[in-house]
Every structure is written in structure tokens, then in C-alpha cells.
């Protein structure tokens, strides 16, 4: 998902300060982390004089607004994403986008969706290294790998009886993380 919103330039330093605090104080990212369906997300402030100008033949931009770009890589559908954002991160979203022109707030969600639909633009090309895996799948797989690596080191030196106990312990440990990856069901 890609979105761009205009901001009055005097508001930009305030937003940058908020992002600085969000980056520096890790507990503030807790809700974003706990949502656990965003692989990567970024906000990029492009100042009105900051659009790259690379040739005398290229006309210089003459803009009155700074622009806030937002890019997100998430699992699931657009509606699931916006609903979850609005339900879980409402306060955080408002802190970020309230500096953008005509931002209606993240609740009620209908107005929020209307605004996002207005300011977003489509992706022409998208690549994902593991298209079948949600971010939860990746985290689960890494836990399985860690557990298996530890178990593998000692598994072959155990007697069958010891192996049985250790194997059951491994199964209990990895069981929640063994779900298969694939295409998510389409939400409504």
C-alpha cells in the first residue's frame, strides 16, 4: 500500500520529532509490533524543496506543501488492514496523520477509509521473497529452526527412551509454530 498526504511545512518538524520519539522509545512501537501482520512499513517526509532535481532540463517543483509518504507491506486484504489499524492503532495513527491536510481521524473507520482511498496510489511492480508466508509464519519458522537446531545437536547421542522424552518436549515446544503457509482466505 502507498499513500501520500500534503502537510503545511510548519507542521513537518513536529511530525519529525514525533517519529524520532517513536524510533527512540521502543515501548511506543508495542502495538505496531503486536499487530504482527506488517512485514515492513515506512513513513517518509518529502519536503517541498526536496524532490530530486537532476538536470537543468527538468523543471523545478514549486510546491506549497511538504508531503508525507507511507508504504506498508502487510498480510491480508486492504479492509482487514485498515480495520485493524483503526481498531488497534487509532491514537498512534492520529498522532502521525493529524498534521496532514483534511485528515478526518482514524475513527469512525468509514471516514478514515474514504480518506485513505483518496490519498493512496497503486503499485506497478511488487516482489516478495516469501509470498506464501505471513510475518507470523516467518517468526514461527525462525522459532522452529532455533528449537530444531538445539535439539539436533543432542538427539543422536540419546538412548531411545531419552529420545522419546526429548522428542515429546520438542513437539510440545514447536507445535504452535507448525502451521502451513499459503494463500490467505479472502476476507469480507
Amino acid at each position, binding site marked *: 500500500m502507498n499513500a*501520500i498526504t500534503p502537510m503545511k511545512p510548519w507542521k513537518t518538524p513536529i511530525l519529525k520529532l514525533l517519529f524520532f520519539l517513536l524510533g527512540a522509545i521502543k515501548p511506543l512501537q508495542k502495538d505496531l509490533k503486536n499487530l504482527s501482520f506488517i512485514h*515492513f512499513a515506512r513513513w517518509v517526509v*518529502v519536503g517541498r524543496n526536496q524532490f530530486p532535481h*537532476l538536470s537543468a532540463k527538468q523543471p523545478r517543483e514549486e*510546491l506549497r*506543501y511538504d508531503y508525507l509518504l507511507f508504504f506498508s507491506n502487510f498480510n491480508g486484504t486492504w479492509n482487514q488492514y485498515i480495520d485493524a489499524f483503526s481498531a488497534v492503532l487509532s491514537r498512534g495513527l492520529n498522532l502521525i496523520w493529524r498534521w496532514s491536510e483534511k485528515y478526518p481521524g482514524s475513527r469512525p473507520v468509514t471516514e478514515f477509509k474514504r480518506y485513505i482511498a483518496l490519498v493512496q496510489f497503486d503499485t506497478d511492480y511488487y516482489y516478495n521473497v516469501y509470498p506464501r508466508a505471513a510475518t507470523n509464519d516467518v517468526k514461527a*519458522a525462525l522459532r522452529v529452526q532455533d528449537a530444531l537446531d538445539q535439539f539436533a545437536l543432542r538427539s543422536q547421542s540419546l538412548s531411545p527412551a531419552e529420545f522419546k522424552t526429548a522428542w515429546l518436549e520438542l*513437539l510440545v515446544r514447536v507445535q504452535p509454530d507448525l502451521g502451513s503457509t499459503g494463500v490467505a482466505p479472502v476476507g469480507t
Partner: protein
Amino acid sequence: MANQSGQVYGLTILSPIIEDNRLDICHSMDLRWYLGHLPRDHKSPFARISSTYLARLVVMDDVVYVGAPACEEHLKSRYLIFETNFDGDLDAYLTLMARETPEFVEAVWKHCVGYPGLSDLAVFIAYMKKCQITTTFYFADVNDRTVQTSLKALQTQSALARFIEKHQGQPPAEIQREFGALLQAMAKAPPPVPGGDESHRMPQEDRGHD
């Protein structure tokens, strides 16, 4: 540094697209046509740029007017947005792009103002950095592993789930022996394919295993 989260780098590039009214097909349309036909799976150029997690290319036609009382304004150029998430260092990544996918880089950035070509790697890197916009806030959910580690872990997860399903209820000595064989097989297995293949479009029960 906002461009990085742990070991992951978030690169944002805005390259102005050439405007030339003499052409039958403008650069932005030609670029969109190319991107629309570029493979997105294991045949993607990004599968060869092996440190890439996710990448996108977007032709941005203009900024958005959100309605009165905001002012309406427009860009004078279209911009190619290149957003990518990868392991490690920016210079190493741009070098990998130039070395592993020169035809892709050429086909995309030849439509952009000031693109110097790939004959001089340092000049290409300098050009990309001129187009770079610093990320203000960057979030990476998993930022302490590598692409290969994560791909390998997904392969392991699949193999272990299949093994458990197949061997449940068997005597411990047999499971132990088979498990040893599984470890050997996994050690010899070819590395997982980045970008996936057509099988991810199939129902689970019809797919081969990873």
C-alpha cells in the same frame, strides 16, 4: 539512522521520469508496460538480488488533492518510486543490483532523468544516492535475521511438520533413526527459492512440499 531497523535497510528512491512530448509512447507509460510484464516470482530480478525481502516500483503521476480548503497543486515531473527492504549495506546492495541485474536496471532507469548508465559503478551509485530520500520512520517486524535464514527456516518448518505427521505413533528408536536421516537430507537440500513459484497459487493439498 531512520533508513535502518536492526540489520534491515529501507531504501526509498524518487527518480524523476523523463518527459518528452515527441514520443508516441511516453517514458512513464513505457516503464509501466515493462513493469507490468516483469516476473514477480523466482524469475524476478529481485530473486537474483538475493538480500531483498520486499521491493516495489511505482510510477507516481502526481501528488493528491484532498479537497478544499487545502490548496490544489501539481508536480511538474512524474517520479519513479523505488522502495526496497534488504539486508545490510546500501553500497553493497546497489552494487549487487548493477552486477546481477544490469538489464533490469537499464530497462527501468533509462526512463529517468540523469541516469548515467552502468558503465561506471561509482557513478551509478552516486546517481541512486542523489535520488534517495531519507526514511523518517522505518519499521521492520523481523530485523535480526537474514533473508537466507528466514527462507531456510520456512523450509525447515515445512519439512519438520511433514516429518511429524508421517512418523507419529512409531517406536522412538525408529523415529530417532529417521530423524537422523531427515537432518542429513535437510543439510544437503538445495537452498530455498527466493520469490516463490507458481505453486503458491495452488491449493495446499495439490502442492509439492518445500
